[in-house]
């Protein structure tokens, strides 16, 4: 199989230790500015991988490579290797529509479309060819249940999504990704624009996803990474370019960091 028939890919049983998505020597340049370089990092299936580090070290850019959102940035140039099993995610002819259906993404700022709650969810479904009312209904209810929003909105599905609170909007965005039944979820600081209570709510949801989805979450909140993640990767800015200075099981990163910068960072001395 090649990158071109990515859509026919079935979930395969992989040994638990193998990475679902593996980056090897991955670099991203915007024009002549390098966002990050030489990144080797694996995202393991069913686990939560936290990506931490100070601002401007390429964490979000790395996330954007995983669903090829970098294609939208005119000057972005990705080099190196990025593979999902046998598939080359950097292949120029890869079906990004299909990739993005299987890799959902949540951004820092909730971004529901200025449509009704219902349309926010049917629109992506219809675009991906799921047009039967009953199918839509079933998937939407399931997704809204999953993010704990169903009871809050089931009587006002026709209201504008913009009328929801920030935390509800973020959970709606999560549901919007989930209706497409993705395998991987990318989260770019999903809690940082929310109040503490909404933030905890979203964090609990991420917690509940362990095992069912493969999650990569960028966060500034080290305590959150410690609570949530199975594995943690620390990005660091060296001479204007992001690098991974250390990656491994979260407990090891926080308790016995190998890299001196990691030690300073997790103990709050640097970063």
């Amino acid at each position: 199989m090649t990158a071109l028939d990515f859509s026919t890919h079935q979930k395969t049983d992989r040994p638990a230790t193998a990475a679902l998505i593996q980056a090897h020597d991955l670099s991203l340049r915007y024009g002549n500015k390098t966002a990050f370089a030489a990144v080797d990092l694996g995202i393991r299936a069913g686990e939560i991988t936290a990506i931490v580090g100070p601002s401007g070290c390429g964490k979000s850019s790395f996330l954007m490579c995983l669903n090829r959102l970098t294609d939208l940035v005119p000057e972005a140039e990705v080099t190196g290797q990025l593979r999902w099993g046998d598939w080359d995610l950097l292949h120029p002819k890869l079906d990004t529509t299909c990739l993005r259906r299987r890799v959902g993404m949540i951004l820092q700022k909730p971004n529901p479309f200025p449509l009704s709650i219902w349309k926010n969810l049917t629109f992506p479904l219809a675009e991906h060819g799921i047009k039967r009312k009953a199918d839509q209904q079933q998937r939407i209810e399931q997704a809204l249940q999953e993010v704990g929003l169903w009871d809050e909105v089931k009587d006002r599905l026709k209201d504008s999504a913009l009328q929801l609170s920030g935390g509800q909007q973020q959970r709606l965005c999560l549901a919007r990704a989930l209706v497409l039944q993705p395998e991987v979820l990318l989260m770019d600081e999903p809690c940082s624009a929310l109040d503490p209570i909404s933030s905890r709510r979203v964090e609990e949801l991420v917690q509940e996803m362990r095992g069912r989805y493969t999650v990569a979450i960028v966060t500034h909140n080290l305590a959150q990474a410690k609570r949530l993640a199975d594995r943690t990767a620390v990005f660091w800015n060296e001479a204007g370019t992001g690098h991974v200075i250390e990656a491994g099981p979260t407990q090891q990163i926080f308790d016995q960091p190998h890299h001196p910068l990691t030690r300073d960072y997790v103990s709050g001395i640097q970063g």
Partner: protein
Amino acid sequence: MQTSSSNSTSNGPRPDWPAIAIWTIATLITATFCCILLDILWHGLGQLSWEFLTTAPANAGRDGGINSILVSTGLILLVCLSVAIPLGVGTAIFLAEFARGNPRFSRWVRRSLDILAGVPSIVFGLFGYAFFVQRLGLGFSILSGGLTLACMVLPILIRAAEEGFRAVPDGYRLGAASLGLSRWGTLRQVLLPSAMPGLVVGLVLGIGRAMAETAALIFTSGYVDRMPGSVWDSGRSLSIHIFDLSMNVPGGEQQAYGSALVLILLLIVINSFASWIAQRYRLGQQGR
């Protein structure tokens, strides 16, 4: 203690000169506008009647009404907008959504549009005469006039519409792309409705310019005040009618005032209609 009290008594509260200047300027401008409006209302209100709107002009416009003029104006506007809206919105979409990877080209297009927007209307009139009337052989007709007006309105429409698209939060585009949604679907369902206020502003500005235009129409749609049979006939727009009555027809002033009042009322109606549509579109979009 002493110095501070003497300071405050000698200076008192300082007059806020910038605020006074701004208020004076604003009042002057509003007053000028009100003077013109009152003058037109004063002289024109007596003319306004159902008969004035529905009878044909007679005696070079001194008598009768303006029914043929209204029909010609409507047709010219129709031709203008049915060309300008699709072309203008299309170009705006291209510039704002699709030309991002080619900033040099879009900068070039934008600069040309800005220059075009500043070109005097008489130049558009001459271009319309040379191109539509003569080269394309459309003659003095409503079609030539409408197309010339479309050329004139396009730069304004495109720039305003483009601003409308640029004002749409990038989060929508990013969100749509990360869900793997098609660009066309995103455009239709999310971007276009969100950009609607900008589109309407452009449309209102464009219609305003088109309705007020005389110079570009004299050479293209012509002067004839008969009822047009089709867009191939010559037709006289309201603004030309006003110009002609006040400049060339002795004793036509009263009718000119009446026509001017109708023109102003039409503009007000069109503006309110446009903002009503924008409002409705946005509410409809949110509540489905």
